[in-house]
């Protein structure tokens, strides 16, 4: 009897593990295919950045060639690029705008969330509801009025309209408030008050260090969003010299084929524009993935 049972159940178990193994194997294969689809465009981009124009027109290749340096020299010195694409100015301008706006977003969102969370005042609930409501209004909708208003203030072609609005980031406030709800006890504020700590100092030296994880995640996302932003700079910086353009603006000028016809250098220019963010992503991917799972951040 027991022998019989063993044979039956043992068989079922073997069957089961085999099934699981088979399914895992097939899925693994499917994931590998998806990985290839995800990486192939970027891989071809990097390979083609190292090849010459004639190489590229001769056919596809998956091994790097040796023209990286000459392509790089062309990107720096060729007249077409000199008028439309200057990688160093692009990095500098994008980095400047992005750092300023990331700092403002994170700092003022923490401040606003702290104000709403810690203090009891009449408009507390109202203001929070307003923040939740306006979270969904996209930039594109207000852009016609925004540009008209900025033109009235004579702020077009300056960086101010790209940096200052970062102070008001409703989605980030919402995230920080949720974080504070779960991990910022109000007793700490009481204790600080008893010890004679001023309200603003409590925020700076107690709340901010305690909110570091939330701030880090939101800083990463604010940075990526601002670095990748093409719509706003393109709208505000209508006619500025090349030295004031942001990186996505410069990349966008590569589209026109009559000015740029050396494919190797175009690929290299595109690669230069995305490599910094890929490196940053590889270094920070753990936080980024965790952050997406937490906040449902969708641009």
């Amino acid at each position: 009897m027991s022998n019989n049972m063993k044979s039956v159940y043992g068989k079922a178990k073997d069957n089961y593990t085999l099934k699981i193994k088979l399914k895992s194997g097939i899925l693994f294969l499917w994931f590998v295919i998806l990985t290839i689809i995800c990486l192939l465009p970027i891989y071809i981009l990097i390979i083609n950045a190292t090849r010459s124009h004639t190489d590229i027109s001769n056919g596809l290749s998956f091994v790097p060639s040796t023209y990286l340096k000459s392509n790089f020299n062309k990107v720096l010195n060729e007249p077409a690029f000199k008028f439309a694409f200057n990688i160093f100015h692009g990095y500098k301008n994008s980095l400047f705008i992005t750092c300023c706006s990331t700092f403002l977003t994170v700092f003022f969102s923490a401040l606003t969330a702290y104000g709403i969370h810690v203090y009891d005042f009449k408009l507390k609930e109202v203001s929070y509801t307003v923040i939740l409501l306006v979270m969904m209004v996209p930039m594109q909708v207000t852009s016609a009025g925004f540009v008209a208003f900025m033109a009235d203030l004579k702020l077009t072609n300056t960086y101010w309209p790209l940096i200052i609005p970062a102070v008001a980031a409703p989605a980030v406030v919402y995230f920080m408030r949720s974080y504070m709800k779960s991990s910022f006890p109000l007793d700490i504020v009481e204790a600080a008050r008893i010890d004679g700590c001023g309200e603003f100092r409590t925020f700076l030296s107690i709340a901010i260090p305690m909110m570091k994880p939330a701030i880090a995640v939101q800083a990463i996302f604010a940075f990526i969003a601002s670095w990748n932003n093409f719509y706003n700079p393109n709208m505000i910086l209508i006619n500025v010299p090349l030295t004031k353009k942001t990186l996505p603006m410069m990349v966008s000028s590569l589209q026109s084929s009559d000015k740029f016809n050396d494919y190797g250098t175009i690929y290299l220019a595109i690669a230069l524009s995305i490599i910094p963010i890929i490196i940053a992503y590889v270094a920070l991917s753990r936080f980024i993935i965790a952050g997406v799972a937490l906040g449902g951040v969708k641009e």
Partner: protein
Amino acid sequence: MSSNAHRRIKSVSYAKYGYFFILPFFLVYFFFQLWPLINTFIVSFHGNGKDVAEWMGLQNYKDILFGGEGRKVRVIHESFFRCLGNTFILWIGNFIPQLALSLSLAVWFTEAQLKIPGKGFFKVVMYLPNIITAASVAVLFLQLCGQSETNPGAVNLILHKFGIVSKDVIGQGLYDTVKLVEGKWESRIVIMFIQTWMWFGNTMIMLMSGIQGINPSLFEAASIDGASSGQVFRKITLPLLTPIMAYTLITSMIGGLQMFDIPFLYNKDMNVRDHIKTVAVMIYQYFHAQANENKMGYAGAASVLLFFVTLTLGLIAFYMTRDKDEIAKKKMRKKAAKEAKLESRQFGGIRL
């Protein structure tokens, strides 16, 4: 009595800090977002081109929605609805594959019995396209999908390797390329692919966190009862995941309505083709035309229409994701306050 007075003093002394702390946010919000929104409404009631200062009332809306006499007006009316249709087609065409892909991946990634090595790596790779600058992605795909007969892009070369694209040997070796940039449906499919490529990782991770939020004992009970993975998916995962999927749907719709970078840059000559022009691109072109040619009024009116669509969608999302515990708490608080009031009336208005 004394505690009441004490509480009053406390609230007086600290409430002002609350206002002080949230002031910068609302100040900036008012000047850089709310006022521009109101300004968009104002602009939408004014004229176009030379008559920007002239009050037109609802004329712009009438022109856009119902058309009217004159060729110019008809063109505006038709192009608005064509762009709306394009936006919808491009959005649907990226959302359906994106949801199917990310839902299945999320289920497989969270299934505990499956032993798949390198799950973390796959997640990281699949999210990667989402963080790359959309402008760079557009220009990159423009290069990869190049349709030049003498020097086609990588996609056409791959198709050539598979024998789909032929190379004419007699006539100077020109490729018979697929028109991935100029063709109507070809270019739309490329844009749908780019959008799916960029967003499926993001949706997948959101859905995964949703699945992980489901009570694990439900899955355990199902596996003890001998449910197959298909049954678990249909009877447990899918119903419990509906709210988060609806949220994803609506945020994706709002994002889709703003689709700008990729349709705008996916062309070789700064001239966005009619079959991929979205509403956001149309609005941008209207208020960016030369001084006397601009269509400020129409741009404003189209923005306002877009705003109301977004607002409706946003309110639905807001309603679905509101904090249910908080609402229950508020109800309790109100009830308690009412009871306290009744009680105090019983004792002749004197609070003990």
